[in-house]
């Protein structure tokens, strides 16, 4: 059962993506003897009885699949999406009895796609903020640690979204929470008599990373795992400066007008966590276990 499941997720490796192979091996060893990922926890039977309306359905998960480790296509079988978020979403789906298909959109379009009804759920490493909660309800599931990606040797001496970033060019994705943080820094730099930081907005991680590689940007602040993956891919050219704490949680977004679905997903996530699947998946994808967070609901009117 377990081996069938693993084979489905991560087929035999070819040339590239050595770190994926390591991640899979690590996950295989860690998970051996633990609860199989695809077996729905016992409490799920009761949930499926309580929320029968999604059983047997296929729901659409809108993702921005440019974040290896969380959600990206499988380099060895590009027809599949793989990552922590993908596995977590499917575990929740298994619990409530639904399957997921994926709709790849830009980061800024995630919540629009959800609001227009073109998707049913968004599990795509999106930070739950009050502003975003105006467009969707969130079930938070992970703490946020950001990393600061810089050129090898950190020539500009950047150590976070602070005075060290004054005068630097920062690459960010449109719609990222780091964008307003950097914008807030601008007047502070000016007040201190330093040049303001500049912002370059792209629409996926790869473009932000390329901006640093091409010398257009000095830094890219994003989830620490994303930064680590980039440094692994270009160890001679990139460095992680430091990790910074961002006062947000990562959340699953669901439509505001479907509170019952939100509650069902919350209940399923609690079951998934209780069964140890959440923690196992963090290890499988080599993510920091300190990310683990018990779920909350973030909703505003």
């Amino acid at each position, binding site marked *: 059962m377990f081996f069938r499941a693993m084979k489905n997720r991560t087929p035999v490796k070819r040339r*590239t*993506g050595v770190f994926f192979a390591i991640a899979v091996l690590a996950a295989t060893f860690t998970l051996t003897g633990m609860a199989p990922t695809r077996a729905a926890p016992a409490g799920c039977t009761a949930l499926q009885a309580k929320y029968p309306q999604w059983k047997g359905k296929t729901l659409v998960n*809108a993702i921005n*699949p*440019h*974040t*290896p480790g969380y959600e*990206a*296509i*499988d*380099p060895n079988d*590009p*027809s599949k999406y793989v990552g922590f978020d993908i596995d977590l979403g499917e575990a929740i789906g298994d619990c409530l009895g639904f399957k997921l298909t994926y*709709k*790849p*959109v*830009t980061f800024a*379009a995630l919540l*629009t*796609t959800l*609001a*227009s*009804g*073109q998707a049913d759920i968004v599990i795509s490493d999106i930070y739950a903020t009050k502003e975003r909660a105006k467009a969707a309800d969130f079930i938070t599931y992970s703490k946020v640690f950001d990393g600061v990606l810089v050129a090898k040797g950190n020539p500009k001496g950047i150590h976070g979204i602070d005075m060290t970033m004054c005068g630097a060019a920062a690459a960010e994705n449109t719609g990222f929470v780091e964008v307003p943080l950097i914008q807030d820094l601008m007047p502070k730099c000016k007040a201190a008599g330093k040049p303001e930081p500049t912002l370059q907005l792209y629409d*996926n*991680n*790869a473009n932000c*990373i*390329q901006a640093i590689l091409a010398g257009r940007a000095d830094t890219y602040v994003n989830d620490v795992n994303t930064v680590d993956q*980039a440094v692994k*891919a*270009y160890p001679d050219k990139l460095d992680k400066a430091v990790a910074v704490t961002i006062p947000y949680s990562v959340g699953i977004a669901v439509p505001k007008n479907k509170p019952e679905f939100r509650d069902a997903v919350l209940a399923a996530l609690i079951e998934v966590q209780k069964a140890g699947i959440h923690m196992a998946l963090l290890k499988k994808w080599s993510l920091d276990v300190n990310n683990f967070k018990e779920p909350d609901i973030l909703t505003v009117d």
Partner: protein
Amino acid sequence: MSLFLHYLSMPYLLQGIELTLEVTFLGLLGGLLLGLVLASMQLSRFSVLAALARGYTVIFRGTPLILQMVFAYDALPHIGIKLAAVAAAGLALAANEAPFIAEILRAGVLGVDKGQIAAGQALGMTPFVLMRRIIAPQAIRTMIPAFGNESVSALKNSSLASVIAVPELTLRSTQLASSTFDFFSIFFASGLLYLLLTGAVAAIQLGAEIVFDLDRSSPQDRLARLLPWRRVPLAMKLDLAPVPSPAAASVPETLAPASPVVIPLVDHKRREAAIAQRSIAVAVENLRKSYGPHAVLNDLSLTVRTGEVVALLGPSGSGKSTLLRCINRLETWDSGGIRINGHALGFAPNGQILSPREVARQRAELGVGMVFQQFNLFSHLTARENVAGPLRWVHGRSKAEADRRARELLERVGLGQRLDALPRHMSGGQQQRVAIARALAPNPSVLLLDEPTSALDPELVSEVLEVIRKLAVEDGLTMIISTHQLRFAEEVADRVAFLSGGGIVEQGPARDVLLHPKNSLTQRFLSVMDAVKPLETQS
């Protein structure tokens, strides 16, 4: 390099091509259909339709496609229209392409020579026949390069569908780049795939240009055209026009009288008396027409009897051409009326203005033929088709019957050897003779000739005049000719009408008016034309 080849042959990317083509196809097909509607609205007689089409063009040509894509995908569901991603992308691309395609269509249609359209109308073609047989075939030829451009542009624009989750080539490339970090190998591979697709479009365009080329070319030529360094030899086209041989340039054999100078005319007085007994073929009554403050026709009246030949003389701008165009209802007028064999062309019996389609039908029934100064042959058709085509399309003759009639008439005007020549390969004189044959083909009851020799080189004038002379003398055709050929008018016309300032200032038997003009304007005109003297010496 091996990575590049790996991605170039990767099924995941190749499958993206299918969606790229699907979106492009939907966009082009939808854009073409919508563009046809928009173009017809803009070209329509009804200004409200034109304004609506203009408004659509302003909005959809003036906003970025990426916004239209997001709108079709994310906004339409809010009003209950939830399209699949590919359909939404196709819709947005179609809505965006439509105004561009409409402008290509409009430019193509407007680019067709106005004279040919007037000639088609004069032959009794309905707007539909005119569009299908004359305008569309010529417009399509000129539109092929622009359509090629538009197709390439639509193909590249389909990549914007990546923002609304259509997993086409671009979206697949960016996702693959994100997960493998092989940024450049992947984008070079996907760029090459796009190049292959756009290259295929270019090949289709060139193929279409060859297929639609009127000048039949040898297979070697066709192959050479596909080579990128080929240049269109501009001079070649001119060389193709054959230099008219002395025999062809001179009077057509079949019509040639022994001496071109004098045709034995019947006794003028007797002919005059005979004509006076006949029915009225054309009656123009108190016709007025003005462009703003400038009066082109000023209370003009003229009666032409069956079998009569009337020559309209007068300086440029005196209203000769406008009068002829009014008689055929190619122009409208402000007041007064015209009757052809008792029927008011362009009006229902109760006086109501008829639609262009009904006017066309009426023209064909009443039989008013017209020959234009600029020949106005249908330039995409051979001499034979110029004559035979209208017989089939307007008068419903069979192909064999129409071809026989065309051959017979073209032989009569001395062009039996040039049946399959295109107008551009004929001399002006030959073209005008084809135009006369074309006007004669449906057996018109009245033939209008608008300065038939004015656009011809002097040495080609006589061949055309000979043809007309024969029609007047041998066939007894009712004709109204505007001309500057005074001697010709004197020989052929029963009556001459001298126009000035939009009215007839003097008319009467040809010899009387030409040799002994009474009106001072006529006298001045004739002396300026330096024609009085040779006529006098001749008589």
